[in-house]
């Protein structure tokens, strides 16, 4: 409001250059703070220390993470992380989109497992607006989210091994990720940014081809994991590079607020799928892999086991989908998109489709909710506040990569340069999600 009645523009025009300058200065300080230890005097008169800027274009930083590290020989003495190179203001964007319109944006958050993000967003909105989701849609969502978890863990594994120098593993894991792409392509119509979930259900039902592809995948995948285990679990170099690296006690991880496999690798048995079940996780049988060592190797084993557990869940979902039939979207035109048949062949359907696209679901005024799911990287939560319109008044994201990165600085200090890539790999951040 104030900007419209403003008459003196000189202050506003001066603001941007100053703002830019301040930004650059803040980027610089991290570097110079490390070089001078804060008070401006060189901290290292003998100059056997070196400040090394790693990233944001470094190949091992999994995107655009920037770490400034102070090295003494090969040992990292201090490290400062700098994130924000992929900041898109996604939370602000959410305030200007209807609930359904915003869903494709969540694909671009953790781009390694878009399906789970879609589901997380839709679940939060459904909780806010109290929308019932048909059972079949829930099973489909669960199955596809577990596939997304496998695909995310496949990337973690391939890239982690590639960072350690074993390039071949990356291509082996990517082969299976490719199979998952094919499944998504068949089921959702897109390979990477699936946008398949809808508020109140999913866009389309899974057809026979899709079921066949998924079944085929669950048959072949465990063998592949076994073959990788054969190569890696007794590999002296790989084990030695991981054991005792990035040690975090259970207290540490809880204090730093890490989530997901990083938490479970340190012996904290917390998994939202088990302790606050959403979808149908209380009806399937799976275990939560835990390791108590708290080092990079423990996290490696936890993720490896998680992939196997996901396969188990997917198998149970496939079984359930045989019997659970019915619609895949709630039949309430004020709360979910109507069927396409209805839209094309009835006036009411068309109007509802129109209205839903224009205004969408409008939760009651003042309603607020937080809903979290266990994504591949940890607790992915959305906090939503409604003002009674079709647009969220506030949307906040609790992204696991962001919280997990809080631990990385701590891990890097005292580690060696060669461990750095292993540590970044073991924390497994996706910067699209961390920067939001």
């Amino acid at each position: 409001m104030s900007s419209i009645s403003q008459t003196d523009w000189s202050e506003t025009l001066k603001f941007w250059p100053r703002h830019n300058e301040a930004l650059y200065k803040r980027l610089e300080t991290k570097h110079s703070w490390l070089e001078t230890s804060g008070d401006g005097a060189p901290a290292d008169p003998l100059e056997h220390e070196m400040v090394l800027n790693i990233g944001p274009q470094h190949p091992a930083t999994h995107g655009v993470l920037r770490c400034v590290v102070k090295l003494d020989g090969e040992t990292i003495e201090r490290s400062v992380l700098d994130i924000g190179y992929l900041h898109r203001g996604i939370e602000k964007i959410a305030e200007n989109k209807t609930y359904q319109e915003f869903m494709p944006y969540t694909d671009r958050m953790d781009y390694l497992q878009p399906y789970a993000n879609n589901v997380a967003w839709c679940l939060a909105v459904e909780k806010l607006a109290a929308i019932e989701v048909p059972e079949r849609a829930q099973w489909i969502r669960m199955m596809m989210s577990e596939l997304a978890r496998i695909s995310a863990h496949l990337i973690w594994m391939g890239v982690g091994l590639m960072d350690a120098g074993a390039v071949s593993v990356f291509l082996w894991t990517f082969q299976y990720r490719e199979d998952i792409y094919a499944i998504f392509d068949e089921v959702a119509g897109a390979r990477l940014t699936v946008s398949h979930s809808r508020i109140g259900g999913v866009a389309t039902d899974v057809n026979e081809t899709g079921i066949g592809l998924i079944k085929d995948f669950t048959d072949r995948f465990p063998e592949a994991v076994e073959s990788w285990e054969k190569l890696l679990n007794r590999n002296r170099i790989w084990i030695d590079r991981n054991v005792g690296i990035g040690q975090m006690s259970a207290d540490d991880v809880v204090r730093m607020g890490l989530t997901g496999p990083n938490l479970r690798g340190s012996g904290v048995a917390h998994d939202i799928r088990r302790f606050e079940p959403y979808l149908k996780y209380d009806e399937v049988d799976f275990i939560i892999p835990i390791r108590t060592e708290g080092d990079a190797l423990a996290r490696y084993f936890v993720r490896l086991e998680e992939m196997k557990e996901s396969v188990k869940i997917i198998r149970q979902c496939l079984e359930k989908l045989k019997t659970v039939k019915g619609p895949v979207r709630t039949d309430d035109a004020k709360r979910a998109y109507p069927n396409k048949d209805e839209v094309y062949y009835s006036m009411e359907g068309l109007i509802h489709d129109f209205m839903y696209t224009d205004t969408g679901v409008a939760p009651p005024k003042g309603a607020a909710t937080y809903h979290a799911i266990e994504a591949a990287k940890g607790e992915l939560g959305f906090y939503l506040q409604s003002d009674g319109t079709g647009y969220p008044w506030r949307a906040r994201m609790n992204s696991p990569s962001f919280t997990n990165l809080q631990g990385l600085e701590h891990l890097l200090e005292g580690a060696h340069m060669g461990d750095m890539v292993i540590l970044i790999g073991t924390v497994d951040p996706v910067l699209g999600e961390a920067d939001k």
Partner: protein
Amino acid sequence: MNLAWYWTALIAFLIVNFLLVSASVLVYAERKVSGYMQNRPGPNRVGPFGFLQPFADVLKLVMKENIVPAMANPFVHSLAPMMMVVIAMTAGALIPFAHNVVIADMDVSVLVLLALTSISVYGVTLAGWSSNSKYSLLGGLRSSAQMISYELSMGLAVLSVVLIAGSLSLTDIVVDQSGGWGILGWNVFRNPLGCILFIVTAFAETNRAPFDLPEAEQELVGGYHTEYSGMKFGMFFLAEYVNFFIASFVIVTLFFGGYMLPFESLIIAQFPGLEGSLTLMALQIGTVILKAGFFAYVFIWVRWTLPRFKYQQLMTLGWKYLLPIALVNALLVAVGLIIFS
């Protein structure tokens, strides 16, 4: 032994060209083998089965701009890749490819070989230092530490072979392995520990995976050759491939009977006409290339299977395990020689 100079010149010409061509073949082999290991076809667009891919790569490198960083020392920056290639090629002069087919048949060729591997560390270190980049410097430092650590074990492994042969000449070492039945005279059977030690250290000395810490693509973004472009980078590339091919030749020469055919004495007893003939020479050249090709394949195989060592692991392996084993091995070989002779 005393060949006319023009013969030596001809052999030298042939061998240098052989090494240059073999480097491109190895690049192709590496990419093809890695492709098959990773369930993908590998290069298959340029020429039949992608065989011209290395030449296309070279063409690309030649056409590229030669960039010297502003803060680099231009002279040393240019010197380093040249050193690498020259040293790699020089080592080829010492390898006996067949009986009497060797450029420099010196009495101390083993020593010269060790000296050359020691000098090649300068190429990497100078490249790392002169680029004036932090990543390159770290790569160069790692390389010098690694090479010094592994040179001792390598020298001791070679020493055990020299003890057995009683000579520092590579030709004599090969001839020495002709005893025994069939292939049992090869040093790999007489000195198995030394053989394993030498192969491991050869991986480290050539900076090949899993000992490729100086390059460490993922941590150091290429390490000592981060700041190189165009043909200067191509020279590092060439040197790497020539180096590990030469290393394969040295492994073969020291431990796997060199240019000798398997069961050579038996074959010659069967066909006495072969003795000293050109056919035998051709067969020997073929044999040594095949044997070296096998070890080159092992180099490639290991690179695409194993993760990279960590710096401390590397040092631990070198100083705590390989060096004591190499010392004990040299001692055992010496004692064995006294007892059995």
